[in-house]
């Protein structure tokens, strides 16, 4: 493979994986470094096949990727269709669902009022009652940082204007709470709870425990 353009590069003859995608791009991979090709040509470009030599020319810059093919080990073409997109883990939503289902994680006697409790400035993750019957607003985060505490503070201020609900206490629940966020939360009288995602999901670690 030879690259001719702003700089020249050469890859010696060796077994390679050559990917030609439907956008026209061509990339040459080795058997390592995951998604990273050894060399490639970005679209828009044109590939021209001449016996054992493929020439991929960039439509604008004219840079060239010249592939000399000695032997084809495997040649196949697949239609992948429309990409459905990457689905994010959704841990936060899942944590909300799990915590609502195991509301006593927060303490004995806690009962759920509802998830996504609506307020004028957006829904509160969980509204529940503690063992003594007091209303508790819970903000759930994967990583508990300052802005999460601020968000909960705004909700609490609003909820505490409602004579049917007040007094409303806050609990900041996250898989991991940053020290700064903890200081701010405790200073505002907001409780902090560290959530065990795997524990809530009922996934036990494979290390045996005493109980």
């Amino acid at each position, binding site marked *: 493979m030879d690259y001719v353009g702003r700089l020249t590069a050469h890859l010696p003859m060796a077994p390679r994986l050559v990917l030609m995608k439907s956008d026209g791009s061509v990339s040459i991979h080795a058997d390592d470094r995951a998604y990273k090709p050894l060399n490639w040509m970005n679209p828009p470009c044109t590939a021209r096949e001449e016996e054992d030599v493929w020439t991929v020319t960039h439509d604008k810059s004219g840079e060239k990727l010249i592939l000399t093919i000695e032997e084809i080990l495997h040649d196949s073409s697949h239609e992948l269709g429309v990409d459905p997109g990457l689905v994010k883990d959704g841990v936060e939503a899942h944590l909300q669902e799990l915590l609502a289902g195991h509301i006593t994680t927060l303490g004995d006697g806690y009962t759920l009022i509802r998830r996504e409790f609506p307020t004028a400035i957006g829904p509160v993750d969980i509204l529940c009652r503690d063992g003594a019957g007091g209303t508790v607003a819970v903000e759930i985060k994967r990583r508990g940082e300052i802005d999460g505490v601020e968000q909960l503070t705004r909700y609490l201020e609003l909820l505490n204007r409602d004579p049917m609900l007040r007094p409303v206490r806050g609990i900041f629940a996250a898989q991991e709470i940053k020290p700064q966020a903890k*200081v701010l939360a405790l*200073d505002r009288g907001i409780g902090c709870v*560290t959530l*065990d995602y795997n524990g809530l999901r009922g996934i036990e670690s494979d*290390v*045996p*425990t005493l109980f």
Partner: protein
Amino acid sequence: MKFRVDRDVLAEAVAWTARTLPVRPPVPVLAGMLLDVDERLRLSSFDYEVSAQGSVDVDVEEPGSVLVSGRLLAEITRSLDSQPVEISTDGSKVTVACGGAKFTLLTLPAEDYPSLPDMPQLSGAVGSDVFASAVGQVAVAAGRDDTLPVLTGVRVEIEGEKVTLASTDRYRLAVRELTWKPQQPDISAIALVPAKTLADTAKSLTSGAEVAIALSSETGGEGMIGFEGGGRRTTTRLLDGEFPKFRALFPNETNSLAEVQTGPFAEAVKRVALVAERNTPVRLAFSQGELVLEAGTGDEAQAVESMEATLEGDDIKIAFNPQFLLDGLAAIDSDVARLHFTTSTKPAVITGKPGDDGGADYRYLLMPVRLNA
């Protein structure tokens, strides 16, 4: 306010009090250390969870009180020459003079400083060295994970003259029994004390012969425990929650009992564990007269070491997390370690050999790991 004091005495008291200064003070005055002089000098710090008050004898010229940055005062007193220190106020400034050095510090508004929680009612006293070693033995097994706050505490059970300390992180459980001198002979109390605070406190109160322990009654509100000894007193808030029923975790009967020299055993575990990758165990095989330690498997580095051991009962092969095993061996405080086994999947009990120093007061229950893990 004006007084003179020996530099070493002052530096030690300030350093001890400064341990409780909050790392991130939510209000500026909490970063301060309160110096209060009447007949003695009292130094106070407080972070809403833990309070500390140290007092030392000083030559008082003029009583008074002042609040200064605790960290700065600690750093200054630590680096002063070994000469008498004179501290005095001058308007809104504090002057610390020692030999040729003179520091002028800004004061914080002392009237904004929160009042320290009162010491709960005195419950009894215990020898400070015994207490420090007992707490050290138990606190090692406490959890450090905030997802289970209950396990970050040391359970303190008081029943008359007997005190039981216990902590567990679910992988191991450490229990220590000791006797103390209660104020009332029929006292019965339970507390869950943050393990880290308790360990630090117990270690730092060994300057006096005894530590007085004060436990607030469980009449609602937030529980509090206080410790006092050698002119230092500290209080800490208790943890809430149900501690696991730890006594039931100990096996009722065991099938084999091994005895090994603690020091050489610990050394061997450390050596063999060098090849144990993260989360891989050290495997122990006990047979008559011999213990074989192994770590590492298959295509990784491996280590084997054999040593002398006595065994009563069935031969046993069992695997442990090396660090947890070492923690237990370090904590038993005995030359000979006794290991009680049921089976290779049931928890093992590590104790010292009773007799030499009453090592039976302490039990360390350790959950084994799967042998072929």
